[in-house]
């Protein structure tokens, strides 16, 4: 089937502002949007620029705004799109070139929440024990691939780029609810601030955007409640 890709393009070396370009491709309904982009790059215009690696939704490279929603191009099939598809760089991020955005501040915020197990005790010679229920408590947020779809979909983040953003809170959640972790107080100093969790207005855009089906808004809510409880 024939599909037209309408792509917002920007070349920092020649363009003063972004502009639209259209490409028509012949695709199978089961092709990924990434396959269609590859077809354009391979056969029509080698200058088209985007990130991609795993091509099956686990590395998080090809997050972009597809028909107004933040998604992974490799997890979006052509059969689920119309005959005209609008593709823009991931909303909420500064554009470097075409569909490539600047992820530096995103990863800076990730680092702020101390995204690693904090446990000051000497580990046992074998594994630490953890019950199946304790392990299940934080399973959802272990799935995050740091693609940026959620943060880029958040109106609070659009309004205030200093907001730590849903992805960083998801990472914090993964440790705060891990029975082996002791970093609650250290992390709450970061999360219980003006640009921490309280900028979340529970819009649910993040949950809708997540390609890993993480209930991001729910996780943020759990962190908020933990914050409140910890202050009582």
């Amino acid at each position, binding site marked *: 089937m024939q599909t037209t890709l309408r792509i917002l393009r920007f070349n920092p070396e020649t363009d003063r502002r972004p502009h639209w370009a259209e490409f028509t491709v012949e695709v199978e309904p089961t092709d990924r949007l990434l396959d269609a982009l590859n077809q354009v790059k391979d056969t029509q215009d*080698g200058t088209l620029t985007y990130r991609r690696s795993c091509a*099956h939704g*686990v590395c998080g490279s090809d997050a972009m705004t597809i028909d107004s929603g933040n998604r992974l191009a490799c997890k979006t099939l052509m059969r689920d799109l119309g005959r005209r598809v609008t593709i823009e760089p991931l909303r909420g991020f500064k554009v470097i070139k075409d569909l490539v955005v600047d992820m530096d501040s995103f990863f800076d915020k990730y680092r702020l929440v101390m995204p690693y197990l904090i446990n000051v005790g000497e580990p046992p010679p074998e*594994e630490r024990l953890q019950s*199946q229920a304790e*392990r299940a408590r934080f399973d959802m947020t272990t799935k995050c691939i740091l693609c940026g779809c959620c943060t880029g979909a958040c109106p609070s983040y659009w309004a205030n780029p200093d907001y730590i953003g849903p992805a960083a809170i998801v990472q914090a959640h993964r440790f705060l609810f891990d029975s082996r972790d002791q970093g609650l107080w250290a992390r709450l100093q970061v999360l219980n601030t003006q640009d921490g969790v309280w900028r979340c207005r529970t819009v649910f855009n993040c949950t809708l955007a997540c390609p890993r089906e993480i209930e991001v808004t729910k996780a943020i809510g759990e962190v908020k409640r933990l914050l409140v409880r910890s202050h009582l």
Partner: protein
Amino acid sequence: MIYTFDAVIVGAGGAGLRAALELGPLCRVAVLSKLYPTRSHTGAAQGGISAALGNSEEDSWEWHMFDTVKGGDYLVDQDAAEVLAREAIDSVYELEHWGLPFDRTPDGRIAQRPFGGHTHHFGQGPVRRSCFAADRTGHMILQTLYQQCVRHDVHFFDEYHVLDLLVEGGAVAGVTAYQVRTGEVHTFRAKAVLFATGGMGRMFRISSNAHALTGDGPAIALHHGVPLQDMEFFQFHPTGIYKMGILITEAVRGEGGILLNKDGERFMERYSPTMKDLAPRDIVSRAIYLEIREGRGIGGKDYVHLDASHLGRKVVESKIPDIADFCRTYMGIDPAVEPMLVQPTAHYAMGGIPTDVDGRVVIDEQNTAMPGFYAAGECACVSVHGANRLGTNSLVDLVVFGRRAGRNMADYVREQELPPLPAGADGPSRALVEGLLASRGPERPAAIRCELQSEMMDNVGVFRVESQIRHAVDRVRALRERHRYLSLQDRGRQFNTELLEAIELGGLLELAEVTATSALARKESRGAHSREDYPQRDDVTWLKHTLAYRTDAGVELRYKPVTITRFQPKPRTY
């Protein structure tokens, strides 16, 4: 710019990050990745990491070692396999201590499940050895190692693409790298360099490998007189998604899934009476090809069914949730109800840059080390996988040998002075970039890549025969020649991915020539190298490692002996 470090690591997957954690506290180390580290393909590994913890039933590292040696069809260096099996146990506990969220047994220990080729009592039957976190074990390992690197302030250079290895007087002096965002070529001086650049599966059309897996490290090593070992051994994973190649983990079969042909017959019972669907991957992939060839593919086509519907929704959604997601997304089916459509997919290079058990690159038949040069992970060949890697052993390889390489490098850089920078160190790298940007030839990189992938898939795949491999050798050489006459459409400096793809393709073509040439020479069938014209394993002539060198005259092959300690070669049946 010229940066100076004690050690430089190229590649931020499991092996690179694990090595960085050894070096970080002891010296100045930089980690270069052409992606963001969390995009590395370690994150796509699914089923588990084996270690004889014995949490669910009796197990021992000797059995793990034996399985690894037999799985590799006795081409495994047994001193290395012993290290792998012994140190796997401690390495898995270490990951748990760093927070890796393993699934748990009812008593709170790390959960384990069966996997292909892993047995108890030296082959008596399947054993639960694979430690797992649902079907996203690699994701958890990559995340956990990266988290620890963040904790220890490891210095990362994200989206820096390595171009060259700097060598001065036979010793490593650093690397050059292309900063993707700016297009600048930088020089990184170092006393030691670790290549942990991952696989090269993108030389095949149907592959489970990420687009990024183009063998950059091995291709560069080849240019500096370093041989590549056992490159004819390339693993085809039995169960890739039909036409797409996306990996469907062996854990589906570990959890009880079975392969069926068009008659609904569980055909693995015929090929492997003891292990059945949990036979090693080379055996299962060949069985699928034979079923298809004899007309028992589904609907006469080139795929078979992988059925997990009898496991029940609870097992499917809890033990293989990502697989269920892939099935829904890419096949439009529910694996708790319907069978999956699968065919073998190019998956893993057993061969690579030869190293000793401390990650030191060794460059000849006497295992002479090249000072300061290290390799670990899929781009390396220790050799623990021999002629065929067992499932889960790649993740073990990353953490065990990443750690050993890091420790050895830390000792090495403490005793060494920084080598002088070779004259014109970045000259070849700049010439490569400028040459491609200025090129005005008739060829497009994508067209050559496409032809390469089809040629390798069709003629150097699961089954091989002399005439076809010879065809591939000639064709790849012709493609290499055409690659000299490229023309790029993108002549910009910033984020020029077309330029990088052209560079990657150049390396991939060289590796394909080495793979095909090594395969043509090896006149026997062993592990993943299956010659229809030489169907038997021939230990008298061929129980030896291939070393392939690049010379002006083409690929030159030499051989070195296999290290055998505990287990003498025997016929390999399952």
